[in-house]
C-alpha cells in the first residue's frame, strides 16, 4: 500500500480511537482501567503529529522530540504516577460517581453530537488535517470537563484533567497549529506538575482522612451555610 493512502486512512482511525476512549472513560469504574485508557489516549496524541507528516520526507527533529516526549510523559510516566498514587491511597474504584455510568455515557454521546454539529458551523482554517479532528478534540475536551465535574475521587478528577489536556493537544495537532518546542514543553511540564502535586496531595489526604473524596473536602471553604453538619472533617475520623 502506498504510504500516502495509508496515512490518509490512518489519521481518521486515530481520531476515531480517541473518541472511543472518551466513551469508554465515561463508563469505566475501575481506576486502573481509567488510567490505562488515558495512557492509550496519550499514545494516540503522540502519534497524531507523526501521522500527519505523510513521511514523504524525513521529519524535523523537533517533531520527533515532541512526539517522544508526549508519549513518554502522557503514556508512561504520568499513568505510572497515577497508578502508584492509586495503590498508595488504597482505592481502586470510583464507587459513587455524582452522575451514574449510564447517564455519563449519554452525556458524553450528547456532547459528541453537539461537537459534531457545532464544528460543522465553526469557521476553521482550510488546511485542517481531517474532518474528524475538530469535533473529536472538542468532544475530548468536554469529556474531560465532565469527568472533573461528575466524579468524586481526586484521582478520577486528575484523569479528567488529563483527558481535557489531551483534547486541547489533539485540537492543536489537528488544526496543524505550530506551537514550537518551548510551548509544547511548557504545557507538558504543566500537566506533569499537576499530576505530581495531585499524587502528593492525595497521598497525604488519604493518610489523614482515610478517603480522597473531594466533595467532602469543603470544610475549608468560607461558606458555612446549611451543610455544616455533614462536612468532611468529621467523616471517618
Amino acid at each position: 500500500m502506498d504510504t500516502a493512502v495509508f496515512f490518509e486512512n490512518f489519521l481518521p482511525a486515530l481520531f476515531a480511537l480517541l473518541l472511543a476512549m472518551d466513551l469508554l472513560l465515561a463508563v469505566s469504574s475501575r481506576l486502573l482501567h481509567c488510567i490505562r485508557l488515558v495512557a492509550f489516549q496519550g499514545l494516540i496524541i503522540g502519534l497524531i503529529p507523526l501521522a500527519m507528516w505523510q513521511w514523504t520526507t524525513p521529519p524535523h527533529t523537533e517533531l520527533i522530540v515532541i512526539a517522544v516526549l508526549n508519549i513518554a510523559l502522557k503514556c508512561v510516566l504520568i499513568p505510572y504516577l497515577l497508578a502508584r498514587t492509586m495503590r498508595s491511597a488504597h482505592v481502586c474504584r470510583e464507587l459513587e460517581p455524582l452522575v451514574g455510568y449510564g447517564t455519563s455515557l449519554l452525556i458524553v454521546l450528547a456532547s459528541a453530537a453537539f461537537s459534531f454539529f457545532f464544528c460543522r458551523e465553526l469557521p476553521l482554517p482550510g488546511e485542517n488535517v481531517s474532518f474528524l479532528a475538530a469535533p473529536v478534540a472538542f468532544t475530548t475536551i468536554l469529556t474531560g470537563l465532565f469527568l472533573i465535574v461528575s466524579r468524586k475521587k481526586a484521582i478520577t478528577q486528575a484523569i479528567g484533567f488529563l483527558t481535557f489536556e489531551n483534547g486541547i493537544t489533539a485540537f492543536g495537532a489537528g488544526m496543524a497549529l505550530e506551537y514550537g518546542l518551548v510551548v509544547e514543553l511548557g504545557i507538558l511540564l504543566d500537566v506533569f506538575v499537576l499530576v505530581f502535586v495531585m499524587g502528593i496531595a492525595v497521598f497525604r489526604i488519604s493518610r489523614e482522612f482515610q478517603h480522597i473524596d473531594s466533595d467532602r473536602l469543603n470544610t475549608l471553604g468560607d461558606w458555612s451555610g446549611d451543610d455544616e453538619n455533614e462536612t468532611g472533617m468529621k467523616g471517618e475520623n
Partner: protein
Amino acid sequence: MNLILITSTLLLLGGLAAPFCGKRDSLAATIGMTSGLFACAIGLAGALALLFGVLPPATVRAGCLSLTLDSLSALFQLPVFVAGIPAILHAKGYLAGHAEGRTGWFWLFFLWTLGAMVWVTLARTPVEFLVAWEMMGMMSFALVAFEYHEKSTLHAAWIYLLACHAGAAFLIPAFIFGGCGIWGMGALIAGLIGFGLKIGFPLLHVWLPEAHPAAPAPVSAVMSGAMINLGFYGILQMPYATDETTLQTLGWILLVLGLTGAFGGILFAVAQRNLKRLLAYSSVENMGILGIGFGLGFLGAAYGKHVISVTAFAGAFLHMLNHAALKSSLFLGAGSVLRSTSTLNMDRMGGLAKRMPKTFLSFLFSAISLSGLPPFNGFLGELLIYIAAFLALNAGITALTGAGLPVLLILAMVGGLAAVAYVKALSAVFLGEPRTQAAADAEERPFSMLLPLLIGAVFSFILLFSAPVLMPFFADLAGALTGQAVDFSESVVPALASILARVALFSLFFSATAGILLRLRQRNLAKNAEKIKPTWDCGYAEPTARMEYTGTAFVQPVVDFFANFLHPVKKVRMDRKLFPAHAEISVETEDAADRTVWKPFFHFFGRAADKIHRLQSGYLHLYVLVMVLALLAMLIWGFYFEGGAE
C-alpha cells in the same frame, strides 16, 4: 499659590505628626490645632489674595502633580477655611475626655480631610482629581466612624462609605468617557449622579441625615459647610459644552433637583427629633437652593438672558459661602449642646438658654440667618436668587417664566418651613424648662468652645458686608462658566452690588438699633432689682416640664399637613383604662427616599445575592461546572450572535 502649597504641606505634616504623640492627647491636640489653624489662615489669605487680584492665578508642577489655583478653586476653598477654622478650634474642647489615646488619629484624619478638600480644588487632571476626591471620602469616612463603639455610628459610616463608592463608580466612567470626548450627555449625567451623591441631591441624599449625626460635631461642620459644596465644584468643573442644548439640559436638571431637594429637605428637617439630623436635612435644603441658583443661571445663559444668569450664579455662590459659615456654627453649637446634655434628642432638652446663654446667642443668630430672614447674611444669597427668579418671570420667554414661577413658590415655602424648623430647634433646645435632669444640669461650655462660635459669627458679618465687593468675581465666574464673553462690570454688577450694600447697611442699622435698645433696657432694669421667676405657668398651679410643648408637638400641625409626603409613624402606648397611669407617644419619620427606593432596592439585591451565594458551596465540582457552562454559553453566544458580522 505658594501660600496654598504651604497650607497643604502644613495640613499634611501636622496630620502625620499627630498620631506619633501616642497617649499624650493634649500634645496631639496642640500639634493638630496649631498646624491646622496656621494652614487654614494662610490658605484663607491665599484664596482671598487671588480673588481680590493681589496674586495672579498660578500653576505649580510638583513631581507628577499639577496644581492650579484659579478664581473658581479659590472661591470653593473659602468654605473649607471658613468652616475649617472654627471647627479646628472647637475640636479640641469637643474631644477632650472623649477620645483617650485616639486624639492623634482624629487630627490625622481631620487635617487630611481638609487637605484633600483643598487638593480637590487644585487638581486639574482626572486621575489626580479622583485620587483627591477618594482621599477626601476615605478620610472623612474614618472621621464619621470615629466613635465606632456605637452600633448606630457604624451603620451610618457604612452608609457613608457606600455613598462614597457609588459616587466613584459613576465618576470614573464620567471622567473616562468625558475625557475621551465621546458619550457627551451620558458622561454629563454620570457626573451629575456621582457629584450629586456628595452634594445630596434628592434620592442621593440618604447618607447626609445618617452620617452627620454620627460624626463628631467639628467633622459634621466641615462636611456640611465645605465638603458637600465641592460636589457643585465638580459639576462646574466638568468639561461640558457651552452650547444652548447642553446649558438647557444642565439648567433644567439642576433646577428640578434643586427644587425637590430644597422642599423635601426642609420638610424632613421639620419632622426630625435629632438636632444634628435636623441640621443635616437643612443642608439638603440649602444644597437644593444652590441647585436652584445654578440651574437658573444655566437656563438664563441658555436663553441669552445674561442678567438672570449672573444674578442667579452670584446668589448661589453667595449662599454657598453663607451656608458654610452659618451651618458650621450651627453644627458646632449642636456639638456644644451634646457635650453639655449628652443627648441630641431635642425632646430631652429645654431651658438651655439660661444655662448656656452664649451658645444660645450664637445658635439664635445662625438659625435666624440661615432661615433666610432679612437682617443677616443668610438672606443675601436667597435675595439674589429671588431677584433672578423675578427677572426670569418677566423675561418674556415662556421657558424662563416656567422656570421662574416654581422657583418663587418653592423658595417662599422653603423659607417659611426653614423658619418653622429652626424655631422648633431653638425652642425645643433652648427655651422653656429642662425636660430631663441632664438638661437641667447643663453648663456653659468653656471659652475654647465658645470662641469658634464667635469666629463663625464674625465670618458671617464679614460676609454680610463683603458681599457687594465680591460681586465682580461672581459675575466673571458666571460668564466663564456659561461661556459668555459679556462684560458685566458696567450694568449688572453695580446694580446688584448696590442692592446688597443697601441690605448690609440696613442690617447694620438694625443691629445697631437693637444693640442700643438692649443696652437701654439693661440700664433701666439695673435700677429696679431684677427678679428671676419661673417660666410663665399658664395658670397651672403645679407646672412641670412635662406639660411643655416638645419639639415634636410644636411641629405636629405641619407634619400632619404633609403626612402624605412625610409618612410619620406614630407609636402610642397607653393603658386601656379610664385614667391611664402610663402613656407615651413617639413619632418617627423615616426618610422618604430610603423608605420608597433604597430599602426595597437593597432588599432585592440582598435576596438575590443570598441566592447566588448558594453557588459558593465549597464543592469543587460545582465550581468547575459553573465555569464550563459559562464558557460554553460564551462560545455559543459569541459564535451565533457576534460571529455573524464576519
